């Protein structure tokens, strides 16, 4: 039974890779499941040529947005976990609700706002958007992370006379590496895979992230299926590699309060 499930789960991956490796003229409807007769990198070469600039955009987008939202989330999570005050739980709830909303319900004012500050249609604008709407999830994961660190450490720092910021920098930050890895991987995946913000905030094809470019590629009738499938593999590769090599951190991230947006 497990074997059957495994075949089912791997099947689309097989289809994507095999179709991508076929030559355009060899991609016929009746032989979809067959292995390619002779290997051809043609689909991948063409997909790479078309998607390469957008892969760069996605990197320029996902890396800064991930780093910034992780740092901000770490500070918030620390305060929420270790410096609770009257109403801090309520504030936390108000903040975390933001990660569940359908972003459709804020898009119109968001675009207006970005136009006002001259960031509409730019990659830095989209970085800002991902950082702001990423605070909720990063604060949540870091709060759960810091909650598991014993209070005695805080106490020791306090006796030494350290305040809230010193304690964070001297005690918490050095312990935060696992938290940053989890949040970083998780946010990178989320931002890389985003489509809605990309397609609405970046109308200019040259600036679009790879998910949007891939969707455009698959929607144009002049493009062969082997190129589309190779494109899907190319667009998926960065997050797939992250998952394959750092999978256990990824699992922690998604269990620590994750949502696919």
């Amino acid at each position, binding site marked *: 039974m497990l074997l059957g499930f*495994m075949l089912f*789960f791997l*099947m689309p991956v097989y*289809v*994507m890779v095999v179709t991508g490796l076929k030559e355009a003229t060899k991609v016929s*409807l009746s032989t*979809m499941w067959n292995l390619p007769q002779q290997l051809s990198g043609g689909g991948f070469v063409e997909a790479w040529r078309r998607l390469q600039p957008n892969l760069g955009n996605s990197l320029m987008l996902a890396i800064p947005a991930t780093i910034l939202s992780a740092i*901000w989330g770490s500070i*918030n999570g620390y*305060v*929420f976990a270790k*410096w*609770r*005050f009257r109403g*801090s739980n309520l*504030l936390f*709830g108000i*903040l975390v*609700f*933001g990660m*569940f909303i*359908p972003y*459709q*319900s*804020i*898009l*119109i*004012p968001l675009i207006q706002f970005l136009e006002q500050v001259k960031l509409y249609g730019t990659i830095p604008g989209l970085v800002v958007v991902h950082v702001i709407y990423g*605070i*909720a999830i990063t604060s*949540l994961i870091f709060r*759960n*992370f810091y909650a598991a*660190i014993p*209070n005695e*450490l805080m106490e020791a720092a306090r006796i030494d006379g350290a305040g*809230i910021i010193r304690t964070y920098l001297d005690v918490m930050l050095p312990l935060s590496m696992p938290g940053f890895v989890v949040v970083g991987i998780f946010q990178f*995946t989320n931002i890389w*895979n985003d*489509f809605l913000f990309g397609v*609405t905030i970046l109308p200019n094809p040259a600036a679009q992230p790879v*998910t949007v470019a*891939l*969707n455009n590629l*698959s929607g144009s009738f002049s493009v062969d*299926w082997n190129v*589309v*499938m190779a494109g*899907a593999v190319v667009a*998926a590769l960065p*997050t*797939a590699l992250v998952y394959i090599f750092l*999978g256990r951190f990824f699992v*922690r991230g*998604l*269990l*620590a309060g994750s*949502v*696919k*947006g």
Partner: protein
Amino acid sequence: MQAKLTVNSRLVAGVEKPVRRRHLSGLFPPLILAPAVIASIIFVYAFIAITVWVSLSKWGTLRMDFNLREPFGYTYQQMFSMPRWHADLRNTFIFTILFLFGSIFVGLLLALLLDRKLIGHTILRNVFLFPYALSFIVTGIAWRWIFNPETGVNLLFDGLGINHLITSMGGHPFKPGWTTDPSVLFSINNWLAMIFPGVKNMSVHLGIPIALIPVVVAACWQLTGFSMAMYIAGMSTISHELREAARIDGANEFQIYTTVILPLLGPVTVSTAIILGHVSLKIFDLIFAMTGTGPGFATDVPGIFVFDQTFKATKYNLGAAASVVMLLLVSLVIVPYLWSSLRKS
């Protein structure tokens, strides 16, 4: 000391009672949180308020117009009389039910099967979770190709001899049009019309659109791994002693699962259903890439409706109204969940 992130099936981990602080520094914690809270108030709550206003406004063209539309809430009234919107609500409902059932049931099954720790269970677990790391766009494109009526799964039916069997018994070969098929299975319109005569005039068939089935399969492929991971984490918190105790009491392996483990997985099921349910209510990318609105709006959902009305038709008030309904549906699921998780901690 090495800090470890604890795996918790609940959204919010419990927080230990913090150490008492001195009065003067009492202002610092709220101050440090202020930027995030202010950003959230502006970019989430104020923006939602603006969207609600837009949905009530006259802004139905490219020219911005914030004046309220008369009569009050007319855009909503208009939307709820659109056959397309009826189809969207039907599709969201059917999609959510089928998708939740599929992904949770299979996720639990996989978790239980992997619980036996057979050879290679880590590899299998990684395979099942792998699709979660991919973009919905990639998933949609791959499955669109697989459910292409001229190839893909239909070819498999031929290859496996299923169609040969059916035709030899005098039947028509089984060759569904999948995402191109506008028909609706198990339509309950006639049945409903016996109770509510008004239903007869409805242009939308209440039932399961065939074109929606491939989308459900694709969504389950992507997110079953998530529910499996939730169940695996949930089961790892069930102590070994508990299983041992049941075994000593004479329970066999099957009974241990049905009487000890499954009942303890109730809270995990609730969390998983809420998180996946809210994903399903918001679903957009997957359907956008895979089928779009579908034949006769057979796979249209509110997420796509909002996108089309706002960015293609520039009917901003109509798009905003639909997004407010989406938000309400999501809140209905999420707010009680957040409330109870936060009160527990």
